[in-house]
């Protein structure tokens, strides 16, 4: 079953067409990696799906609920309640974490379960402890974000997103704000989530990681999806010339490995 269906999405900022006729599906349990050069529209696509940006036209369905469709060429969004229900089904991990600095790690994680889902504090705390343990942060529950390394902060933000038990989790370059030696710990966490069959969509510049973890790879360029397929197809048997050039840069000038 497709947990996310994106059909013919387009989006302009003023005169700049950032997304052009984007369509793709995400199946339950699938890990989708979105790659592509800077400015190709990856973040904008994620933000449209996450309702942080409004698409101009197209159709998006999440978990069988229609979020947006197009009538007479204009995007029609669902009613407030549906949009909210959809929002609670999906989580987003930001590039720069966006933790709440005035809350401790524990408060960051239980904030939404307690105040949005109206869980009891005890229930939310128990679940948060479990999540923090999974992230290797059980000792940091009382710390404040400013006392943590970037990698630890990003793991807290993953725990915070998971605390709402989303059906699908989006990542926008989760390691780009981190020192190279810290990216590994985040990639490991995402890999573990993949092994648990968490549905995920990950925008990343980590090609080896995308190749390793993703079931499906989407290559975007100038607002279009120019190539997509299994990692073997996209990395091993690249069809598109733009993709080839892009991957070559990431492989230090060498042709992509077969």
């Amino acid at each position, binding site marked *: 079953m497709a947990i996310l269906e994106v059909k013919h999405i387009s989006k302009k900022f003023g005169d700049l067409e950032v997304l052009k006729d984007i369509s793709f599906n995400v199946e339950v349990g699938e890990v989708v990696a979105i790659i592509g050069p800077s400015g190709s529209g990856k973040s904008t696509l994620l933000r449209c799906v996450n309702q942080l940006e409004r698409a101009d036209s197209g159709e998006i369905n999440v978990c069988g609920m229609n979020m947006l469709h197009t009538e007479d060429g204009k995007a029609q969004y669902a009613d407030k309640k549906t949009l909210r229900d959809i929002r609670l089904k999906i989580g*987003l991990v930001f590039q720069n974490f*966006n933790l709440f600095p005035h809350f401790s790690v524990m408060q960051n994680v239980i904030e*939404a379960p307690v105040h*949005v*889902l109206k869980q009891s504090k005890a229930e939310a705390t128990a679940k948060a402890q479990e999540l923090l343990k999974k992230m290797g942060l059980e000792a940091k529950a009382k710390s*404040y974000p400013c006392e943590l390394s970037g990698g630890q902060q990003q793991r807290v933000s993953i725990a915070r997103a998971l605390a709402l038990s989303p059906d699908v989790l989006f990542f926008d370059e989760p390691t780009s704000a981190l020192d190279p030696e810290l990216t590994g710990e985040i990639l490991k966490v995402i890999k573990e989530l993949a092994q648990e069959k968490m549905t995920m969509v990950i925008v990343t510049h980590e090609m080896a990681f995308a190749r390793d973890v993703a079931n499906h790879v989407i290559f975007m360029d100038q607002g279009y999806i120019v190539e997509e397929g299994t990692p073997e197809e996209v990395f091993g048997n690249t069809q598109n010339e733009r993709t080839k050039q892009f991957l070559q840069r990431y492989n230090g000038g060498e042709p992509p490995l077969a």
Partner: protein
Amino acid sequence: MDFEAIKKVTLILLEYLPNTLSLFIWTLVFSIPIGMIVTWLKKCRCRPVNWLTDLYILIMRGTPLMLQIIAFHYAIPMIVSSAVSSGKTGGIIPFLQSIMNNEHYMIITLVVAFALNYAAYFAEIFRGGIEAIPKGQYEAAQMLGMTKMQTFFRIVLPQVTKRVIPATANEVIVLVKDTSLANVIAFAEITMKAKQQMNFYSSILPLFIAGIFYFVMNALVTMLFSFIEKKFDYYK
């Protein structure tokens, strides 16, 4: 001036300290909430309201507080007397007359002038605080399904509070000293009384004593704010 005289002057100033303090406290009580409302009006999505708010801030910050005090103090008597002399005694005239004859008329006009003036400064401080909150904080809250109210009261406001404390402290310290402007309408506060004593003793010492009063008040204000600042020190 001998020691006895110094003691006498100090006691007189102490007697009028409550007047200075009540002007100070009432100004804070009104100007901070009004400042919040002004911030909100300035940020609301209605152009004419934004313009009016800008104009208000421009006038309040752009003209001397002393002129504003004089204007507020004499506006009502002038309206009333010109209305009465042209034979109009209905409408709001009786109401204005009752305010004018109120025994607290002087402090009322002072607090109105001070509160409206300080609200403009506080509004700009609060606006700066709100605009310094990164967009990512709103987006994170939105992604977690928080409502606009929850986002404002649980995420934005606590962070804004921390950010505006130093600038607010500055403004409050200036207010302590600005209360002396009230002597322009002969409000019996410390500076006014110190001037009287200065003339009486032909000595500058009463002004020096008044200066100590302001100094001590501001030392207390400074301590209070650094205490509050420390309370918010647990995060960056």
